[in-house]
């Protein structure tokens, strides 16, 4: 149930994001989800891709600072209340969400969550019968 997300350190310089996508594109890496967290000086690019290990090697070879981060992914109906429910389950157990992002696929939303304790989060969501996605499910989207 653990998904390996690529995190890439980027300076805020025009063209850097393009370069990341270009080098991954040359090796036919597919991107399922992408998000950027930024400050005035640098950003962190977060990516869910078809082959995280390979993508990491490609980026390393091209001198990017890159790491794999464990995240979890949940599938839920797109209404806001379902997203809220997921977050509530976690906060009730004092599991903090460091960041989250989502995208919709038809009537469903796919939510990515980075939690303070990944194992506990998975267990809690399972107990509430929330639909968790496996890496293989996600890479197919």
């Amino acid at each position, binding site marked *: 149930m653990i998904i390996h*997300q690529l*995190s890439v*350190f*980027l*300076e805020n310089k025009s063209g*850097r994001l393009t370069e990341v996508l270009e080098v991954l594109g040359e090796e036919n890496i597919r991107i399922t989800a992408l998000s950027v*967290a930024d*400050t005035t*000086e*640098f950003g*962190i690019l*977060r990516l869910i891709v078809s082959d995280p290990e390979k993508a990491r090697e490609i980026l390393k070879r091209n*001198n*990017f*600072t*890159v*790491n794999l*981060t464990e995240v979890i992914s949940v599938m839920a109906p797109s209404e806001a209340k379902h997203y809220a429910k997921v977050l509530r389950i976690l906060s009730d157990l004092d599991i903090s969400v*460091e960041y989250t992002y989502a995208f919709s696929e038809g009537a469903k939303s796919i939510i990515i969550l*980075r939690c303070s304790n990944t194992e506990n989060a998975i267990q809690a969501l399972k107990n509430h019968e929330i639909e968790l996605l496996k890496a293989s499910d996600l890479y197919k989207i």
Partner: protein
Amino acid sequence: MEIWNRHFECMDRDGIRHVQSERLRETVERVYFNVPYYRNRMQEAGLGPESFHSIDDLSKLPFTTKQDLRDNYPFGLFAVPMSEIVRVHASSGTTGKPTVVGYTRSDIATWSEVMARTLTCAGANRNDFIQIAYGYGLFTGGLGLHYGGEKIGASVIPISGGNTSRQIQLMHDFGSTVLACTPSYALYLAEAIAESGIKRDDLKLRVGVFGAEPWTENMRREIEDKLRIKAIDIYGLSEVIGPGVASECLVQEGLHINEDHFYPEIIDPETLQVLPSGSRGELVFTTITKEGLPLIRYRTRDLTRLTYDKCRCGRTLVRMEKCLGRSDDMLIIRGVNLFPSQVESVLLEMSEIKPHYLLIVDRINNLDTLELKVEVDEAFFQDKISQLEELRQKLQNNLENSLGLGIKVTLVEPKVIERSEGKSKRVIDKRKY
């Protein structure tokens, strides 16, 4: 521990003073009769060759500076006819005309001798493979090490600077045991070796002789840990002869100055007075055997102090403390003196960042600004903005605490900061005066 020239390197103080006095008299005579510049200055001061009896009389003479060399560009201070000169070297001249130095055949022999002492000091001998990754050419580093290496009978690999993958390949295939380059390049090589996939155990490297730029004790530890070698500091400047002026031994408690060839004094750079033994100040050299370009009281701008005790290695040559920086490199930021090496020292205490950095000095609205660009270490990067911000803040605080200066820290991507293969460029000063 082997000593190349026990006679001179282990001579007692009285003996060495006698040698120095004798050689100073010869040098003064040589420059008086052969270099109009020196003769004029001595005459202005009412001095002649007969005014010099012992090394103590040296302080009667005026100083020589890099500017004097430039003013007499290219060969004006040479003390022999050009037919006697067998080699010239020159500094890069980034801040003006290059400084040109000339060697007679006997000067080359002296240089080989002091470099043989240097390499022996570092524990090298005829069984070693010395990989010389200093640049060859007008820069004195490459050829200086080369002649010393041949003199001790080692196998010299004159690979010169640059081409890192080839450096690593030959280091591996030839089994280099001694590496000679700048300390910043040694650190760069250490990283490149780690990335190359070559196992450290497959390399025979044992010791490094590093110089041509100031480096800190922290940087030494970093190089020693990463390359698993003994890192020896060597010192020299092309005006005096090149590398070979002074070198650490394996005890690593100061650099032995070859004072039977280069006589050191420590002066106060402001008052120009000679300081008492043990004081820290600017290092000044008088060459007492050189023929091509003898220099009288040449101001090095390097700050250090001297120790006259006998070293545990057995050598009695005076030792100088590792140079922290040249007074030329010193930046004055909002009235505070700052050596780039001090910044480096702070960086090396933090494992989260790489010791490669760039300092950018500017003046905005009449106020000096200082920005430090550093690279985040990949092993530390964990995808959290807050963590990176904390790191930036921590570094900013550490710098402020140890330097007394506010420095804006910018984290940059790896390999953005240029790795130098010669002397590294650490500072960009955009201020206009």
